[in-house]
């Protein structure tokens, strides 16, 4: 199972990096968003840490949708989904594999967004780095778990990126709010608030939807037409 997930993730990463459009689009769109929001900076004023956090996570959420749409489109081009489903590989290997690949691609795009946030939105990391990192990884897992589950909706071109974002964004609200607040804490020079309950929220989100995804993925990713 793990071996197959790894093979799936490796194949998806290879295809995404060499010629897949998902990652490039995700990075470009995110950068564009960050730049455009920098225009909302008042003359002589600054963008608040919270606004910067919100812009960062908005860019990430758009990136998520593009990345997963692309990851699942890979299997549709020549009908490979049927091959995977009829192979002895457990369907969960697809979920885990796509999730891993999606997490890597999302992290790569965020590696671009983070300096862009610092540059265009004038932010500095004052808070502890461990908190920034924990938030990044924790919230990303939440995003990816939902993305890998619902990204399968795009199978067969039934639901496109636009519909996927309409469905996924509100569902992600808890983890986005947590990401925004915790990033605001890290970007702000003032003494920090209490991050514990927000970290707990992220953890609860990750755990709940990892469980739900495990149970539900076989229903979304099936041979039914």
């Amino acid at each position: 199972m793990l071996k197959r997930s790894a093979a799936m993730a490796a194949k998806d990463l290879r295809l995404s990096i060499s010629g897949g459009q998902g990652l490039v689009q995700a990075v470009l769109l995110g950068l564009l968003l960050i730049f455009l929001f920098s225009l909302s900076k008042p003359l002589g004023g600054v963008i608040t840490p919270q606004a910067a956090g919100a812009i960062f996570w908005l860019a990430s959420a758009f990136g998520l949708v593009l990345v997963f749409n692309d990851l699942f489109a890979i299997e549709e081009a020549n009908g490979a989904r049927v091959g995977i489903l009829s192979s002895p590989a457990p369907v969960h290997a697809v979920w885990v594999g796509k999730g891993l690949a999606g997490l890597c691609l999302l992290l790569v795009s965020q590696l671009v967004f983070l300096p862009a946030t610092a540059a265009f939105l004038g932010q500095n990391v004052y808070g502890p780095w461990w908190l920034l990192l924990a938030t990044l990884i924790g919230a990303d897992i939440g995003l990816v778990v939902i993305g890998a589950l619902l990204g399968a909706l795009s199978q067969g071109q039934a639901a496109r990126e636009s519909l996927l974002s309409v469905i996924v964004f509100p569902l992600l609200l808890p983890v986005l709010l947590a990401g925004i607040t915790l990033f605001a804490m890290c970007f702000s020079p003032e003494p920090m608030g209490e991050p514990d309950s927000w970290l707990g929220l992220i953890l609860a989100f990750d755990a709940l939807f990892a469980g739900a995804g495990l149970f539900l993925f076989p229903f979304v990713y099936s041979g039914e037409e």
Partner: protein
Amino acid sequence: MVPSGGEALLSVRRAAKFYGGKLVFKDVSCEVRPGEILLVAGPNGAGKSTLMRMMAGLSRPSAGEVILRAEPERTAYLGHATFIYPGMTALANLGFWGTMYGLSPSRDELVTLLTRVGLERAAEEKAGSFSRGMAQRLNLARVYMVRPTLLFLDEPGTGLDPRSLALLRREITGFRDHGTGVVWISHHVDKDTALADTVLALGGRRVEYFGPAREYAPEAEAC
């Protein structure tokens, strides 16, 4: 490696499929034994592909049952879709499917397989540049790798030139002669009936004919 005796690899018992309230077919019963070709015939829309997806365990019957006795590791699916990732080399494509089937083949084994389908020189080429015939041969290599005891064919001949088509027919009978049970949906029923052992003809949302291939008269299907 030939499964002993005549135990069916696949049995379908009074299966029906609905789409919502719409009946696709009902009361479909058939069996596939080792070394036997079952040809599925019928007009477009009769539910041939639906039936095959059901046989392969990809979709549930609405009523009745489908019993698969062939191991999943030794079941292969060869359709008009090639299952090929255009961005990867022929070798990488084949290797990926090997892992999916839990085989972890070595590079040499993969090259041997590609040689068998005449793609040894294209092994390091991106599969996206392949012609339809080459892509289908790469697809065939995947089936060889699995060494199936049960093989599903969903119009694999679509878009192939006559020469590749003849080759494909030879390969299919070759599998049968090695004891593989074959379920075959074909575009060229009139020609392919001669190769089959049994025919299952769907039409009018039920089975029109199920029996020995030599007694099947495709004319009856026309009306």
